[in-house]
Structures are given as structure tokens and as C-alpha cells.
């Protein structure tokens, strides 16, 4: 399936892009992260959460949506 991935803040600094679309066949969020970790070496040590269709999900969640976002620590206000 096609997955649209968005990157923000310090994560976008590492990926050097704000978004990309990947062709992907795994089941879980963690499967996708494995792919991203090998693609972007410096991602591993970074603190981030994952949103699927604009809701935070655990890494063990099944991939159901096409919109995935990697969100570094929030700093609002």
C-alpha cells in the first residue's frame, strides 16, 4: 500500500524532507519504523511519537490509514 509520511521539527531535520510517500507491505507501525530507521540512520536515537490519521498510536498498532506522521516532543505555548 501507499503510505504518506509526514515529518516535523527535528525529525524533518534528520529526514531532510517534510513528507514522502512510500510503497509498503508490512502490518504494524513498528514494521514501517524499521524501514525508516534503516533509511534514516539518525532516526534511531530520536524521541518521537507516531500519529495515524491524526491520532497518536502505539508502535504495535496495525497500519490502517494512509497518513502517518512522526512527531517529536510537543513544544506548544
Amino acid at each position, binding site marked *: 500500500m501507499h503510505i504518506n509520511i509526514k515529518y516535523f521539527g527535528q525529525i524533518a531535520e534528520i529526514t531532510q524532507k517534510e513528507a514522502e510517500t512510500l510503497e509498503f507491505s508490512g502490518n504494524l507501525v513498528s514494521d514501517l519504523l524499521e524501514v525508516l530507521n534503516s533509511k534514516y540512520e539518525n532516526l534511531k536515537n530520536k524521541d518521537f511519537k507516531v500519529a495515524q490519521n491524526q491520532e497518536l498510536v502505539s508502535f504495535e498498532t496495525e497500519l490502517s490509514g494512509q497518513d502517518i506522521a512522526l512527531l517529536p516532543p510537543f513544544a506548544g*505555548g
Partner: protein
Amino acid sequence: MKDKKPMKSVFKEGAITSEFIGNSIYKHQTKTSIGAHNIFLGQVRADDIDGKIVSAIEYTAYEDMANQKFHEIRESAFEKFELTCMHIYHSLGTVKAGEICLFVFVSSPRRKVVFEALEYIVEAIKADVPVFGKEIFEDESHQWKVNS
């Protein structure tokens, strides 16, 4: 009398000015059921981090998700507290040290309500809304802000 508007963006480009805040207070003087207002303002600090001074924060956000979260916080606050109205504004882009980046404004007939509601809303914003802050130092290096 509840001021429940449809979902709109909370974000404003750049700093929130004191004129804007004063004007927002002024507009509430026609709402004569209000007895108490409580306002929170977040201001960018010129923190000294290992000898380097923060001169500005550059804010970005996952805007769609953030506006959805602001909307949920708003709905939940109206459910929990007897509020007459509520307004939230957050900056995007560059906000210099000393300038205001967050403006939360709640009003109610009675004061106890506004204290509880304002703290609830501000804590929810800090915890749940995907906004990111790049602290720019005077030498143009930077680090990423993390809410504590």
C-alpha cells in the same frame, strides 16, 4: 449565550500583540453575564543555555491535527466547565524573546470556574497539541524546545 463557533484555525502567523489581546478583552464588555475572565499568555523566554541566549522561537505544527486537537480541547472544556466563552490563539513562525506565542482566554459568570478551566486548557494544549519549537540562539545556531 455560549460562543461555540465551528472549528477554525487557532494559529496566527507571528507574535500575538498586546493590542490584539486588549481588543479581545474589549469585545467581551458587551457580554454582561460574565463576572470573571482568566487569561493565560505564553511569552518566549530569552533563556541562557550554556552561555547562548535564545533570541526567538520558530514554531511549526502539524496543522490539521493540531486544529483538531484544539477543537477537542475546546469541546471538552465547554462540557466540563460552565464557560460563557473561550478563545485560543497560538503563533506559527518566528516569535522573538519577550513576545507572546500563546493566548488562552476563558470567561464565566463565576470565578472558581475560570481558574479550573484555564489550567485544564493550558495543560491540555502543552500535552496534546503537535506544535514544535525551534529555539534560535543569537549566533543563529538552534536547539529544539521540549515542554516540561
